[in-house]
């Protein structure tokens, strides 16, 4: 179910440079949301109109947690929110990761970590191994990963922590050593998702990707977030906000 409501910020704190954790009460959905789903945040004022979508990074009782990065005007405003600030939110939106009963590999690039934190917490309850590949620009850009269950492998672009290089290369190097069957769940920048998509086709592993597209509504009514489907004859058009944001790699054509 989707709810549009006014609530208040319970907590909003900087986790590392430009990355913040926001918590607010949203009891209508906190019991039913699933990893992969997102919420919209609405802003007053008429200059930037679109609501901003954010993945759910975790739940705690009635609280919803969002992990966000300051990248532009509205996330800048969010970063200044204090506890008690009134906010308008709508959720839960979108589909969810399809949790498979087998070993899980989570691959996060940058702030793409957000939905995987929530997924990791859910996977913990299953009795299968979890491996987390966490990519970041630098060692000081790794928010909250130490709370994750399973084995965690870090990759940083500047080599300041863990593997030096991008997280897909890091994963590729370990790929053969990961016992099959396994499912990969990934979220991150487009280039990373494309690289993984090609890797999955080559190495034939199960892959689910959480995509980002500019959204005007998040509700399936504007048709703005449409992406082509890998088999256009079956599904001429998929909406990231409604049919996604999580897609199975074989639904997509990212080459």
């Amino acid at each position, binding site marked *: *179910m*989707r*709810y*549009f409501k006014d609530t208040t910020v319970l907590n909003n704190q900087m986790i590392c440079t430009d990355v913040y954790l926001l918590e607010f009460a949203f009891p209508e959905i906190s019991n039913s949301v699933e990893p992969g789903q997102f919420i919209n945040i*609405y802003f007053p004022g*008429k*200059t*930037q*109109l*679109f*609501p901003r979508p954010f993945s759910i990074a975790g739940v705690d009782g009635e609280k919803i947690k969002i992990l966000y990065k300051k990248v532009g005007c509205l996330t800048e405003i969010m970063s200044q929110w204090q506890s008690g600030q009134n906010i308008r939110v*709508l959720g839960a939106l979108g589909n969810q990761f399809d949790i498979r009963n087998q070993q899980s590999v989570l691959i996060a690039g940058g702030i793409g970590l957000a939905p995987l934190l929530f997924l990791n917490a859910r996977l913990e309850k299953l009795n299968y191994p979890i491996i987390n590949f966490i990519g970041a620009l630098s060692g000081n850009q790794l928010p909250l990963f130490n709370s994750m269950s399973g084995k965690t492998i870090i990759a940083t672009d500047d080599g300041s922590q863990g593997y030096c290089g991008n997280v897909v290369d890091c994963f590729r190097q370990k790929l053969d050593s990961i016992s099959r069957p396994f499912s990969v769940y990934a979220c991150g920048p487009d280039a990373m998702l494309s690289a993984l998509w090609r890797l999955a086709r080559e190495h034939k592993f199960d892959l689910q990707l959480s995509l980002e*597209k*500019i*959204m*005007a*509504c998040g*509700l*399936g*009514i*504007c*048709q*703005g*977030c*449409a*992406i*082509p489907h890998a088999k*256009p004859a079956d599904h*001429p*058009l998929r909406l990231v906000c409604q049919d996604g944001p999580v897609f199975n790699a074989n639904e997509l054509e990212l080459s």
Partner: protein
Amino acid sequence: MTDLKTQLSEDFILRNPLLTASGTYGYGNEITDLVDPELYGGIVTKSISLNPRIGNPPPRIAEVTSGMLNSIGLANVGVAQFLAEKEEFLANYRGKVIVNVVGSDEDEYLQVIRKLESRQWISAYEINVSCPNVRQGGIAFGQDAQILGRLVQKLRNETGKFLIIKLTPNVTDIRIMALAAQKNGADALSLINTVYGSAIDINTRRPKISTVIGGFSGPAIKPIAIAQILKTYKEVDIPIIGIGGISDGADVIEFLLAGARAVQIGTANFYNPGVCIEILDFIDKYCMEKKINCLQDLIGQAEV
């Protein structure tokens, strides 16, 4: 409570002046969990074409200052699937159902209408004439008075339903289009459709929507809509439905004063799902405060 009824013709009466704008509220039943569609006076559907249309490639929306660009490209399921999937919901809707119709040539418009004409639950057609006319070298039907006039005449011969022509503002003189529509039998005019707009990303150097130039909507275009309505209102005898940048109740009053008998809410459905109820609240308070008993006392009452 003020009486919000608004009469567009003897038979065409809306319980309140708020309609959804085509393409911004799906086919009417997509967000009933969030917004009660019965709050609206009526629903205008997405543009329906004869066959399904996928629309344009992504990116097809972009945010610009106080507005948005879209190049959705009239993506829709086509008239057959529309009837198959949406009839049940729309036939039970208690407000007015207005089906927006689009075509690439006259024939397509007529064929769509023929497929819809028998449905009693459809009260009106709104004709989108902003689509490039394939038979006329791509000039939009709405940009040439002769082409428009002929289309309206043919549609008029085809239907007894309330016939609304939705005009584009991208013309030198909208009054000429309005008069051509009126002369050929239109029952009402909707204005405005989106304005031509574009934006370029200065980092990638790519246009922000794939078609480069798209439709500009949202609060930024409101002054354009008001100007076009004021101009047209003085020239025509048929009612005007106002559209363009409405985001709150004050905007709706402004459109009514300018001469609109009803209004459509477009882009605001995206950035404020509560917009309809907020507008109804505002109108009620405004009318109470100003001692206005019926909308008739507002429509066209700007002191211009």
